[in-house]
């Protein structure tokens, strides 16, 4: 009898499993970028014969098509960056939902806690003068430390929250833990505020300036319709994207190729059976919250890095969007969270960037949130299990 390689009972060939998501990431990003770009160019073409063109000519000195084209690279970069931020938060929602079938409403506050702890660490370093004249390597090192500390704090909070507010409610009707989660969310918001205002006297915090994160990496220059187009990307956007990709790959590896990951998936599918296999359900749930929380925390620090300013309510909208992204992609499905995040980030950035021009100033970026919810509703109506959600095997 051929011996079955035992390691493979938990671990598929590791490198393959680790980089498998890369292909998805690249194809998803490329596909949604191309589709949306073509779509927007089409709209611009259509609008070329209308008053919008004159509006563009008078306000921006170029015709609508050139304007659209000129903005496109930057919009794509911004959209993808935002998409990865959403994806990173959405992973946390999806992890918890996958295992407990419960929307962890307080995940946005976990995100905020990660952001605050990470930023406070950096501010403390900054105040201690650590950042004056440091090398680039050290800057990146400190950033990574901040992200890790943020992850630990957020993961810890998530675990605590699970033990205090959710575990006693396991098995209760669906709405009960959801309401408890709303309670936790409110509690944490004010807790952050209390702690921050007691210690620093204020509660919005600024990501300190150091390293080369704000600088831009020039990719190329080329001429389009008579104007020079500069294609460049900020270092912090690159960091956000790389960090999100790394997190996704690691998560994918943990969930799909390790023993605990397999156990978590087993718990997600059939809790009673899993416990009959000797799996400690509570431990698995705790680990799930820990991973989800840590991802949220990392996303929080990255968010602070990218957008500079955070306050205790910072998690609310990104959290809501990330949830939308998770549902859009098929909640419970890790790849779905990535796709949903990318699609939503891109759509939102596209809407925010072009709506104002295309409507001649009548409706602006403020409507991008409405767009996000409209998409959520539409997706839920026509594909209740999301873009990549599985129909089979769902509990009724």
């Amino acid at each position: 009898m051929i011996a079955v390689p035992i390691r493979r009972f938990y671990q598929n060939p590791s490198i393959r499993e680790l980089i498998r998501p890369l292909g998805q990431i690249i194809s998803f990003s490329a596909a949604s970028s191309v589709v949306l770009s073509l779509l927007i160019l089409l709209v611009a073409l259509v609008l070329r014969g209308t008053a919008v063109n004159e509006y563009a000519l008078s306000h921006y000195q170029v015709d609508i098509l050139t304007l659209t084209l000129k903005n496109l690279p930057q919009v794509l970069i911004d959209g993808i960056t935002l998409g990865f931020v959403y994806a990173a938060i959405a992973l946390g929602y999806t992890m918890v939902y996958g295992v407990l079938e419960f929307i962890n409403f307080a995940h946005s506050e976990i995100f905020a806690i990660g952001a605050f702890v990470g930023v406070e660490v950096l501010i403390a370093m900054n105040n201690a003068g650590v950042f004056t004249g440091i090398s680039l390597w050290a800057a990146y090192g400190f950033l990574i430390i901040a992200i890790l500390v943020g992850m630990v704090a957020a993961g810890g909070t998530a675990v605590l929250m699970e033990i205090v507010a959710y575990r006693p409610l396991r098995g209760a009707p669906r709405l009960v833990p959801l309401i408890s989660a709303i309670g936790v969310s409110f509690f944490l918001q004010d807790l952050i505020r209390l702690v921050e205002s007691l210690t620093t006297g204020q509660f919005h915090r600024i990501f300190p300036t150091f390293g080369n994160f704000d600088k831009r990496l020039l990719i190329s220059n080329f001429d389009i319709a008579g104007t020079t187009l500069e294609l460049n990307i900020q270092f912090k956007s690159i960091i956000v994207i790389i960090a999100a990709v790394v997190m996704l790959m690691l998560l994918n590896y943990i969930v799909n190729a390790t023993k605990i990951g397999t156990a978590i998936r087993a718990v997600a599918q059939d809790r009673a059976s899993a416990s009959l296999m000797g799996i400690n359900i509570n431990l698995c749930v705790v680990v799930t919250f820990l991973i989800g929380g840590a991802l949220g925390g990392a996303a929080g620090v990255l968010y602070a890095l990218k957008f500079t300013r955070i306050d205790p309510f910072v998690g609310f909208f990104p959290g809501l969007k990330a949830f939308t992204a998770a549902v859009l992609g098929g909640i419970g499905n890790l790849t779905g969270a990535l796709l949903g995040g990318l699609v939503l980030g891109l759509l939102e950035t596209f809407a925010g960037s072009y709506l104002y021009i295309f409507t001649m100033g009548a409706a602006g970026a403020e409507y991008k949130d409405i767009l996000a919810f409209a998409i959520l509703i539409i997706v839920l109506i026509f594909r209740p299990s999301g873009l990549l959600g599985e129909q089979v095997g769902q509990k009724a």
Partner: protein
Amino acid sequence: MALLEARGVTKRFGGLLAVNKLDLTVEAGAIVSIIGPNGAGKTTFFNTLTGLYRPDEGHIVCQGHSLVGLRPDQIAKFSIARTFQNIRLFANMTVMENILVGMHTRLFQDMPNVLLRSRKFKLEEEQAHARAAELMAFMGLTGVGDELASSLPYGVQRRLEIARSLAADPKLLLLDEPTAGMNPQESCEAMILFQKLRDQLGITILLIEHDMKVVMGISDRITVIDYGEKIAEGAPHEIQSNTRVIEAYLGSGAAAALTNKESEARRPIQLEKSPAPDAGATLLSIENIDSYYGHIHALKGISLEVKAGEIVTLIGANGAGKSTTLRTISGLVRARQGKILLRGQNITKLPPHDIVKAGVGHVPEGRGIFPRLTVRENLGVGAFIINDQPLVQRRMEYVFHLFPLLKERLDQKGGTLSGGEQQMLAIARGLILNPKILLLDEPSMGLAPVLVDLIFQIIEKLNKEDGIAILLVEQNAHMALQYAHRAYVLSTGQIVLQGDAREIAQNPQVKSAYLGG
């Protein structure tokens, strides 16, 4: 003219053909029964008839109207009412309110009338309440009208569910295992009730039932389905003598020929023997446990024991508490009272995963495999608590020896396996930890007779060759008693009979109640 006619009804779930081209005619005023093994597609067929599922193919016609594509509430308006296999009452409403909800289609109050409390409204409400009181009296529910449905005992809940469906004044009543969990006397009363419904109220009844005594006693016609297909139809006496039916229910010796001879030829790989307890020493003993499912008192002072090297079977009607007993042993349900000892160690209060570590393997009802994990991963999860890799290796080889088929399916998702393969996987997964005692819950459920035989042979082999004690819960009492050493008979959460399996099998009461004889 037929009250209800179904032609070629087909329902698929993914790749699984749950109901396959089923034809059924229900004449007005008849009592028609549908029987078949668990998982044969009976309830799915009911759900398709009542619109909870939409059939993939086929026609369903009620009094000249097609029901296909209608919503359940629209179908209900054709005077079709139903009950559910696992009672679905409105738990936090009173008995009275449950019945009033059943009258929904019979009440004509609309928003203005409700808000204005018109005379019409008051009159209708008065009549509705009076009618509800009548129904309660009819179903023996008088006096509990203001109790919450969830606080009622099981049998009363069953009655309430029937009362609720009667409130709709149905012409056709679909009853899904209405006597499950009733003791023989209650079943008898239920039989009389069903006849009364037909004779006095003129209600046509379509019945899914396991209790052969009930089925044979009151049905005008019986349809037998297996694997979603109709395998027989006719009057009770015709069905009783139909060989295909007997085969589906009782299995046949012929299946033995199909077992994997190759594997037998090979030297069996043995599990490492645990420090062998003397045969006959008590392995598991349960003392006087009480368990609850929500408000339902499911086990009332159950005591039983399993000795080393024994196969012990628990038999009894659906809802008698068999599965609950197993679930209480493995900690999925908490015993409120009593003690569970595994080789003297008290495991009553341990969480399930520690009970597993203590040496209890549990193959749950419905197999409980992880559908989205591969066979490899399913087995891997089964070996979760073992950190010794070579040991896992040996155990894997052992289960592959028992179930060579699994090895071929190693990278297939659990959900895509056939029922029999899933059952093998479930048992294999339960064996990986080398349990001292294996709890098997309905291992033959939904399996073809051939496979049922195979599974039972494996059970016997495990017991004989590897000395694993087995506590078996089985619907197929006939089969179970054949293989078991000892048996306990459960009824409504209590042990009513215990003893040597062969003696129990000969017990006339048991025969009539569970063996359809």
